[in-house]
């Protein structure tokens, strides 16, 4: 049975807006209500279609009124900020993430109409450390519990969602642990990071990166909203790439920086509002993280259309390379031609001087005698 009234938090961002627009196109759904603290841009508002936008702060008990009066039956919680830059500092970010979730869950618990909750979580809850197993399944926990930032917020949020589902066992709860998003339109931490012409990385470390295309993220969120999967599922594309490989495929320049210096570089870039090098982001860029997506394929029933490499290739269309791959191919091809010509000249010289340049082939049949 498809949901009648869906409430989506965080619609003013790309993914939230795209999900609301997708749900609004579904005629089986009566109403789609979008909530955010900031109004969506004019272009996004146009795409939202029949979505009703409510400007509300989920940190405010007002959200309960919205849920009750519209008798919302499905709540998609996506208003979780991953960088301090997007929400005006670490303090407001934590408040929005943790207190906002608590308020929303408190409102959901009081609303008898709610029967489904979808949480956009992250695979950052697994942390990133050298003690990690290579691939995380849903049953595993972080070996080194993230101590702060987005990952810690996400762990707290998942904890509150678990206690909510204990108190309201009649509500189906789907927790989606996404890997890093990438794509031509989405504005994620990684896409901003890779847009820089020179990408600083931790010297001596190479992270394993698993990506998810924005269309697949949207597809999974839409299916989780309209479907009936309950539980936790890892969502990521097939296959992995190394960070150095990602940078090379995008034609970017890699600048290995010793890890301590990367921290101060991060502070500098954060001040100018470029890219966030929080300590947890740095750990991720050093060690990386890969999740097992068997549950996604079998129990959840979704197969991402893009693999990690394909998602990156699609993103590459919008990020013009600093070193065009054609140039590399051209230069190496020309060098190969040159070598081939030199080789043929050398061999012709070699044959004219009767093998004085090259040793005569060994006479056949001779073999060392094993036992003398």
């Amino acid at each position, binding site marked *: 049975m498809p949901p009648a009234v869906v409430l989506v938090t965080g619609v003013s961002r790309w993914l939230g807006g795209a999900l609301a627009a997708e749900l609004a196109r579904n005629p089986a759904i009566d109403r789609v209500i979008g909530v955010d603290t900031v109004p969506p841009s004019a272009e996004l508002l146009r795409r939202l279609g029949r979505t009703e936008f409510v400007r509300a702060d989920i940190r405010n008990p007002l959200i309960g009124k919205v849920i009750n009066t519209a008798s919302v039956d499905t709540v998609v919680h996506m208003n979780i900020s991953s960088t301090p830059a997007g929400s005006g500092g670490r303090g407001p970010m934590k408040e929005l993430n943790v207190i906002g979730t608590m308020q929303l869950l408190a409102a959901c618990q009081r609303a008898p109409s709610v029967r489904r909750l979808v949480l956009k979580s992250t695979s950052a809850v697994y942390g990133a450390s050298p*003690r990690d197993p290579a*691939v995380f399944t849903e049953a595993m926990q972080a070996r080194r519990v993230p101590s702060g930032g987005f990952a810690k917020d996400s762990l707290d949020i998942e904890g509150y969602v678990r206690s909510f589902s204990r108190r309201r066992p009649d509500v189906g709860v789907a927790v989606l642990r996404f890997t890093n998003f990438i794509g031509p339109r989405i504005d994620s931490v990684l896409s901003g990071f890779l847009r820089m012409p020179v990408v600083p990385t931790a010297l001596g*470390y190479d992270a394993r990166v698993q990506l998810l295309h924005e269309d697949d993220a949207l597809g999974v969120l839409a299916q989780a909203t309209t479907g009936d999967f309950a539980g936790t599922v890892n969502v990521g594309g097939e296959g992995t790439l190394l960070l150095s490989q990602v940078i*090379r495929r995008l034609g970017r320049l890699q600048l290995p920086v010793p890890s301590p210096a990367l921290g101060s570089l991060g502070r500098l870039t954060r001040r100018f509002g470029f890219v966030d090098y929080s300590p947890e982001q740095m750990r991720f860029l050093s*060690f990386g993280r890969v999740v097992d997506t068997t549950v996604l394929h079998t129990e959840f029933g979704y197969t991402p259309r893009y693999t990690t490499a394909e998602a990156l290739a699609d993103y590459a269309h919008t990020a013009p390379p600093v070193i065009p791959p054609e140039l590399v*191919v051209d230069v*190496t091809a020309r060098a190969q031609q040159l*070598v081939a010509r030199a080789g043929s000249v050398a061999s012709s010289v070699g044959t004219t001087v009767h093998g004085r340049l090259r040793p005569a*082939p060994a006479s*056949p049949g001779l073999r060392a005698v094993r036992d003398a």
Partner: protein
Amino acid sequence: MIRLRPDDDGQRHVPPASDPSWDEQVAGGLDFLRRRLTGEYETDEFGFDTDLTDHVLLPVLRPLFSRWFRVETHGVENVPAEGGALIVANHSGTVPVDALMATVALHDDHPAQRRFRLLGADLVFDLPVVGSLARKFGATLACSEDAERLLCGDELVGVFPEGFKGVGKPFRERYTLQRFGRGGFVTAALRTGKPIVPCAIVGAEEIYPMIGNAKTLARLLGLPYFPVTPTFPALGPLGLVPLPSKWLIAFGEPIETAHYGPAAAEDPMLVFNLTDQVRETIQQSIYQLLLQRTSVFS
């Protein structure tokens, strides 16, 4: 008629495939360079970079394998040509060169050119450069999750249950096996039903004879031990050159685990017994190899 070389009978001499000429080699190198610059190569979820391993890491190790240590491999027929298996070996040599040599041995001397997926301590992956190179070489963290995942993926997994106790033991204790961890490797084999192949490596003990251990320095650097050898640190970087001992690597008969069933992993007595059996087998074959080897450096 007395044949001089009876085993030559009926065999026609096949000329060996000629080595690629220098221009072909340079062209291959340029091709490799192009792949590296554009990122057009494959890596797996453990970070294994086959392109780098085949074209840089293995060629760098090969002279060490064939010229410096003159490694002889015995019993490769005991290593399955396909499917997963857990290879359990002794660990020694102050610096874990033995793991690298076993990788070359299985790739070059096994007819199926098997890839050896090593399991390493977390310290390895914490170190810059070493950690990322280890992953590119096919290694991953020694934990049951990774071991079982690799075994289920039909890989040849290499484990050194002695760990740092084995690599960092003093020279006077050479060729005596240390405690075999807690038998985690047996549990992984039982759960996946893959055979355990015992492997004995002789020769690694003499490459850096560790006569002392600067414990205070080790603690300062956060290392499990800091080796003092006759040449290191006395001769500085020259002390990093390993002694050219003669190496023998022998793979023993596989110990099947499939008939116990995955539930047997929950039986600690069986796990202990199997651990002891593997340990005894390796110790016995170390003694046999030592008898075979006429002297340390020949």
